[in-house]
């Protein structure tokens, strides 16, 4: 499957003018994480579970508080985290895998983010329905009302 089109995966990347060691530190040092990401009791150890408090995302149902777990890592190369919404009733139904990948690029680092596990069966359907329902309503009230 061409996962550029995979609606269950979000991929981003960013060039940072700093060597992988610095970027890695920012990804794994709790004090630094608190500065740019979210405060939480992160520890670089596979199986470590921790909680991060961020901000809710209106429109997604995501509560903003994450129960996370370190799933895997390779120093200065890859860090994989499991994320669940701390609110089990969250309509976002978050059960995600977040993977940071670091690649040296020139004198800096290209940092890749993969956010996997969006559930098309629930969230996307819900969103699609609401978008389509809105679409239907617009169509119904517009000039196309006669057609339908």
């Amino acid at each position, binding site marked *: 499957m061409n996962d550029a089109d995979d609606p269950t995966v979000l991929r*981003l990347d*960013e060039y940072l*003018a*700093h060597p992988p060691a610095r970027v890695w*530190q920012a990804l794994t040092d709790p004090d630094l994480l608190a500065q740019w990401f979210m405060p939480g009791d992160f520890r670089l*150890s596979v199986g470590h579970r921790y909680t991060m408090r961020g901000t809710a995302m209106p429109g997604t149902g995501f509560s903003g508080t994450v129960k996370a777990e370190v799933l895997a890592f390779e120093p200065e190369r890859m860090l994989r985290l499991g994320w669940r919404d701390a609110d089990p009733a969250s309509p976002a139904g978050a059960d995600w895998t977040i993977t940071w990948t670091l690649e040296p690029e020139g004198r800096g680092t290209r940092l890749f983010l993969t*956010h996997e596990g*969006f559930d098309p069966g629930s*969230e996307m359907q819900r969103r699609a329905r609401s978008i389509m329902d809105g679409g239907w309503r617009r169509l119904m009230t517009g000039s196309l009302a006669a057609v339908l």
Partner: protein
Amino acid sequence: MRREVLRLLRERGPRSVQELASGFSMARPSFSEHLRVLREAGLVSERRDGRRRLYSLEPVPLVRVRDWLDPYERFWRDKLSALRHLLDDAETADTGTTTDSKTTDTTTCAGGPPYDSGGGPRADQDEERP
């Protein structure tokens, strides 16, 4: 009836006229007339697939489905931007300090040495190819 056709296309994907018509008790010419109206309204499109004509729902109202990831993408873009600023600012601050501050940072990292699990240092991680 036309809404029912749209629902079928939405739920089951592209369908030939025959497949669509089989769901309705209606003479084929009348059915084709309904399809024509939908087509002209831009709600469905028609393409040839061999000898069949396949009708699909036009993606206009659907193409935005991917938008539901937008809040998450914005979230990460914001975070990545914050990360870049943090690193850039730290670099600026570092130019006035000694270079071995990095070593100190590592040892003060909460939770002990950062490489304490996951198999330890890898043999291949230090080699840079020319």
